[in-house]
């Protein structure tokens, strides 16, 4: 089963054949030590990759960023807070003055202002917004990253399929990356303490050659064992070991010092900016899904100071990402999502904070052919969705469709078909290319 199980679509089969064919022409030596980046340096391959391989960078605003101080300002309303709204490059679309750089780049971004996801609890909301659906008593659903890893990842990939940065502690335990029933093959590489993944760096006291030959010896012994034996687990184990060297060579992808000062300055030298720069390096090398979580948005007190400090960072980092991806012709194949477990109440509490709010909030989708502008509308105070309500299932159907994944595709749990999104849910057709 092994590889077949992993990659069922004919698109991928074609892509892999193309990949192997071209590599063979270059020569086996090139194949043996090819990292994702070197692979991209072949223009023919990069072209094919760009055509078929969609990728996702999810900016996860943990704790719940305020829609009123970002994508859906209500200046002048009792609930509006102190900040103004500003014009954007999209005629008629205004966003918070805290996001001037994204205002200039609104020609690339779709704001969805009509999320009603009903769950205003950190844990439940985070699970829902990472999966697009609720777990059933005996079905643990995979999250977006794991589904994208499953659909877009390649069995022979030299890079991880799903990377998640979550360095701050707020809400981390509530929204770990989770492959659910897809199993550990699609579990994320999680980075929680620094920007370098665990066990990716060669163990001390061993030469590169010994490390490689030791792995070859392991493979030799394991190949003998595999004769006359077959099992999906056996296949996955050997596949996992075969990916070790490639993953180790992707160590450089996690190293921002490989970028020019100019690019590094574009993203800024803060942790969030650096992680987003790494995310760009990763998706450029073929990683299908990267999440960068930025926490401390849970502003029950001092909401305006919090957002005054944090939104500008989100603004310039996101703008850097958009510019950088555009320069590299990657934006049309990469979907940048800003999302959280929920938004914040229009009502301002006595501590000048805003509380949890899931009935009328915003997210944004950028790139991957998504039509820019605004979808949906809240009422004058921001308390209710006035137009174009979108629930978690509809949002996920839209995301999957933008990535070229049929949202009604079934996975099978035993004989039970499990559709990717809640049955009967359609994507927002109007925003899809």
């Amino acid at each position, binding site marked *: 089963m092994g590889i077949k199980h992993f990659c069922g679509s004919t698109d991928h089969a074609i892509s892999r054949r193309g990949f192997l064919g071209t590599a063979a022409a270059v020569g086996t030596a090139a194949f043996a030590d090819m990292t994702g980046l070197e692979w991209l340096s072949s223009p023919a391959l990069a072209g094919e990759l760009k055509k078929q391989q969609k990728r996702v960078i999810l900016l996860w605003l943990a704790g719940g960023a305020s829609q009123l101080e970002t994508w859906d300002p209500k200046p002048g309303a009792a609930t509006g807070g102190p900040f103004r709204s500003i014009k954007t490059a999209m005629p008629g679309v205004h966003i918070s003055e805290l996001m001037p750089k994204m205002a200039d780049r609104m020609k690339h971004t779709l704001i969805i202002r009509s999320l009603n996801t009903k769950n205003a609890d950190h844990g439940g909301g985070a699970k829902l917004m990472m999966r697009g659906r609720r777990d059933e*008593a*005996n*079905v643990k659903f995979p999250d977006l990253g794991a589904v994208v890893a499953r659909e877009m990842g390649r069995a022979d990939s030299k890079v991880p399929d799903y990377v998640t940065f979550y360095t701050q502690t707020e809400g981390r335990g509530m929204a770990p990356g989770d492959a659910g029933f897809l199993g550990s093959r699609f579990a994320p590489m999680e980075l929680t303490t620094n920007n370098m993944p665990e066990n990716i760096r060669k*163990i001390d006291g061993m030469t590169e050659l010994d490390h490689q030959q030791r792995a070859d010896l*392991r493979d030799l*012994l394991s190949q003998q064992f595999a004769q006359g034996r*077959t099992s999906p687990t056996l296949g996955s184990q050997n596949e*996992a070991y075969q990916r070790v060297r490639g993953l180790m060579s992707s160590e450089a992808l996690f190293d921002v010092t490989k970028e020019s000062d100019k690019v590094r300055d574009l993203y800024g030298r803060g942790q969030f900016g650096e992680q987003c720069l790494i995310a760009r390096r990763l998706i450029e090398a073929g990683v299908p899904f990267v999440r960068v979580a930025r926490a401390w948005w849970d502003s029950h007190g001092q909401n305006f100071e919090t957002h005054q400090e944090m939104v500008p960072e989100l603004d310039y980092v996101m703008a850097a990402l958009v510019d950088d991806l555009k320069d590299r012709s990657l934006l049309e194949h990469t979907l940048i999502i800003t999302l959280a477990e929920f938004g914040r109440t229009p009502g301002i509490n006595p501590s000048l904070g805003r509380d949890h709010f899931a009935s009328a909030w915003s997210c944004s989708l950028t790139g991957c052919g998504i039509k820019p502008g605004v979808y949906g509308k809240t009422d004058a105070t921001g308390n209710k969705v006035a137009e174009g309500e979108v629930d978690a299932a509809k949002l996920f159907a839209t995301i999957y469709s933008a990535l070229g994944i049929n949202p009604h595709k079934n996975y099978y749990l035993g004989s039970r078909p499990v559709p990717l999104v809640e049955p009967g849910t359609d994507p927002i057709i109007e925003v899809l290319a």
Partner: protein
Amino acid sequence: MRSVRLALPAFLLAACVARADLLPDNRPIPEAIDHYVDAKLTKSAITPAPQADDYTLIRRLTLDLVGRIPTPAETRSFVESTDPAKREKLVDRLMASPGFVRHQANQFEAMLAGPNNRGGGNGLRDYLTRALGENRPWDQIFRELLLPDESDPKTKGSSDFLRSRVADIDRVTIDTSIIFFGVNVSCAQCHDHPLVSDWKQDHFYGMKSFFSRTFDNGGFLAEREYGLVRFKPTKGPERQAKMMFLTGTAVNAPGLKEPTKDEEKKEREKFEQFKKDKKAPPPPSFSARAKLVEVALQSKEAEFFSRAIANRLWHRFLGYGLVMPLDQMHSENKPSHPELLEWLARDVSSHKYDLRRVIRGIVLSKAYSRSSKWTGDTIPGPGLFAVGRLKALTPMQMATSLRIATSDPQAFESGKPEEFEKRIEGLESAARGFAGSFAQPTDDFQIGVSEALLFSNGDKIAREYLADGNDRLLARVKAANDPDKAIDLAVRSVLCRPPTPEEQRALKEYIGRRSDRLSEAYRQVIWALISGSEFRFNY
């Protein structure tokens, strides 16, 4: 109180083989197993794989029965023995050892944790260790898990099964049905099962009715006298669920009416008092949960219970169920060997649900001890049991076996049997932490890159398992002072067999190229052995 069968459970009869046609019940279990498995192989014109060799057999039995690989001394003594009853003697020795109880407790703990790995923990494992140590019958364990008496030290910890789920009665309903009856009614929560005509919404809500009065009262399990489950069927008006078992057997229970305001108030006050006193409330005069246990173990209804445990034990030892998946035991998913499942289910229920008896019977069958290597063209389907199936090691099997494999083998050779047992127990406890690095295998288990990275670059593997200390395999291998002997020792310790000539050659060459750093060379060889596929599986 009266149980009435409301509808004839046609599917139950259909799924069932007439017991009168089965092999007599006094046949030894292995004989009955091989009779049915061989009959199907003959019918399918398939010659099964030969029996596994002694090296493979002792490794398989030791992993399955006591949760670890055998030591080189154990392997040697089994392989060299010419006693025709050596297999039975090995099985009996392993099953009499404390390691058997500990390993089965781990296995049952994982099974009770269910598909989503819920509950469990030290309390439940301690309970299982006690219960399995006394060889308590499976029906008694079922009763103690569902009707825990939190004041009885004998059953302490058994309440964890319910307590870890009680906040969500749907979960209790679904997990209980899956674990004890092999039936997944979760689809029927929202609609009659689309594929399986057996499972209607009435079944889900019928089963839920037995649990709906159970709740957490200040850290103690409690059950109310009242409580109805109402549900909205996909068609028609909302209705009240019957207390109904999976067979369709319904229970006429008192209290199938809403309590009056006054009764409700009184009950609430009673439970508040227990909460204040921090005491376990006594069971109600009519316990719906107790009724479920009673009904489920009635002779006809118990077929679900006995078939489910027979199928689960078969799956545990053969790596594949007679019915797959394990939670899909219904009329539209026939067993691969219907008669065998019936025979085993009858055997287990007519011998007081004695788990040891079934386990011993299964592991002494020829079907259990076939080689896992297929030499023909197409590997026959798993439901034929024509060839041994690979079972990924569980986290505890893996971590304990790693400790044994990388210890100086001589450490296991001296001393009395009690000392040996103590030493093994010590290794097991020391392994528990590291076991957390591995995932519990499921049927379509996939090993992820994090495990491969952990072995390849993890500090812990290098420091704890491949260290050079006196009590380590590496030190002993180096001391051999002869590459052939060193290789032989390393392979026997880790893989529980002598090296093949090709392995001997390849490893010798590998070491020969590193004559300037022999210690490193041997360390790398041991690494390649512990990280390889053969070590990772019970094959």
